[in-house]
């Protein structure tokens, strides 16, 4: 979706405000929310692409107004509701409606340690053919899906060169909408800075973007 989250190349966002000796969490609730999102993710009722899209669906003005974790909280509530884990009335009252109580949470202490140590790989060891080769000239498609995508606007319809083939990965555009993993190759694509930004950019500079097969087409002659 052409959301406000897709910020690469935008102007007017101001100066970078780097905090000295910044804490990992600025308040305890940020850490609890961080942990809650992982613990609920362990039920596997959604995936990382669903959770990214939920954040992108926070309305633009809210997205810009809210802090990172506040934005994630709003998105997390929507995911919990959509998955049927909680009801709006439970969130409003803070009281669980009578009903089934799970005997064992999805994420125990042991499973939390395993999650931290192993993560959740999104590569797939499948014999999917690569449509492009290293060194090949390609063009990022001029596409504007209303759903989730990881093809940033600034790269669309721009030409670049396949720098590296990362192998086969889950495709976010379908996975974010529970439409399957559609595994395919991901490439590091090198775009010259002037191809993206014109004469204002330094000629020798470049931006490398990781792009899936479905985002690319052969470069036009």
């Amino acid at each position, binding site marked *: 979706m052409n959301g406000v989250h897709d910020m690469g190349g935008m102007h007017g966002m101001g100066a970078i405000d780097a905090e000295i000796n*910044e804490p990992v969490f600025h308040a305890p609730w*940020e850490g609890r929310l*961080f942990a809650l999102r*992982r613990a609920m993710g362990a039920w596997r009722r959604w995936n990382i692409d669903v959770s990214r899209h939920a954040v992108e669906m926070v309305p633009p003005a809210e997205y810009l107004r809210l*802090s990172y974790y506040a934005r994630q909280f709003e998105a997390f509530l929507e995911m919990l509701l959509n998955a049927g884990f909680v009801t709006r009335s439970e969130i409003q009252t803070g009281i*669980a409606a009578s009903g089934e109580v799970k005997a064992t949470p999805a994420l125990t*202490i042991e499973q939390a340690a395993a*999650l931290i140590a192993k993560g959740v*790989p999104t590569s797939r060891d499948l014999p999917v053919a690569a449509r492009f080769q290293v060194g090949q000239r390609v063009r990022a498609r001029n596409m504007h899906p209303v759903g989730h995508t990881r093809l940033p606007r600034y790269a669309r319809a721009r030409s670049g060169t396949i720098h590296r083939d990362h192998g086969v990965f889950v495709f976010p555009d379908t996975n974010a909408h529970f439409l399957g993993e559609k595994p395919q190759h991901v490439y590091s694509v090198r775009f010259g800075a002037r191809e993206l930004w014109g004469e204002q950019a330094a000629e020798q500079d470049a*931006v490398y973007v990781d792009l899936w097969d479905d985002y690319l087409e052969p470069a036009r002659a």
Partner: protein
Amino acid sequence: MTPSISHSDDNPDHEHQTVPSDPALRVKALESLLVEKGLVDRAALDVLVDTYEHKVGPRNGARVVARAWIDGSYKTRLLSNADAAIAELGYAGMQGEHMIVLENTAKVHNLVVCTLCSCYPWPVLGLPPVWYKSAPYRSRAVIDPRGVLREFGLQLLDDVQVRVWDSTAELRYLVLPQRPSGSEELSEDSLAALVTRDAMIGVANVMAPGRGNHI
């Protein structure tokens, strides 16, 4: 119950966005609800918070960098198969499942960003700082990397090529900074102590002891 203090009240200089009223209370209520329904285990939440607040952070990445500086064969492995080389030092896991290491040289400077959100190599750098997730950095790193670097105090010469890496997929990037001149006699531990988080994102260089941040 502890009073709710929003981040913006707490740190007016470093958080220009606002949070909803009483986020602390809202998150606490949600946690209690999910515990009551048997959906989450508080002890598992504690493990997650403790790990990323106290155990995983940029000192891990600094050890990787220092090892690469003193051990040429390790550096070769790190640049060709980062996952395995980083795992040699015991670092792996969530949001570092697919690692790539980028080597800075006298002629190439690498800079890492996630324009779409906040992707960042947790096992080696921990969770990202607020500025990395902020609109100013995400919007400008790709269109004006040299301006961003100047803002961090790093003025690159024209003959240096800037490579910006946008973390749009599940690959996670760690910059291998240049080893500072004058550090030849330092031990691996002393070298690791010089390596900063910012240098491993690519917004700074590593300075030898007693040097300022200049070319």
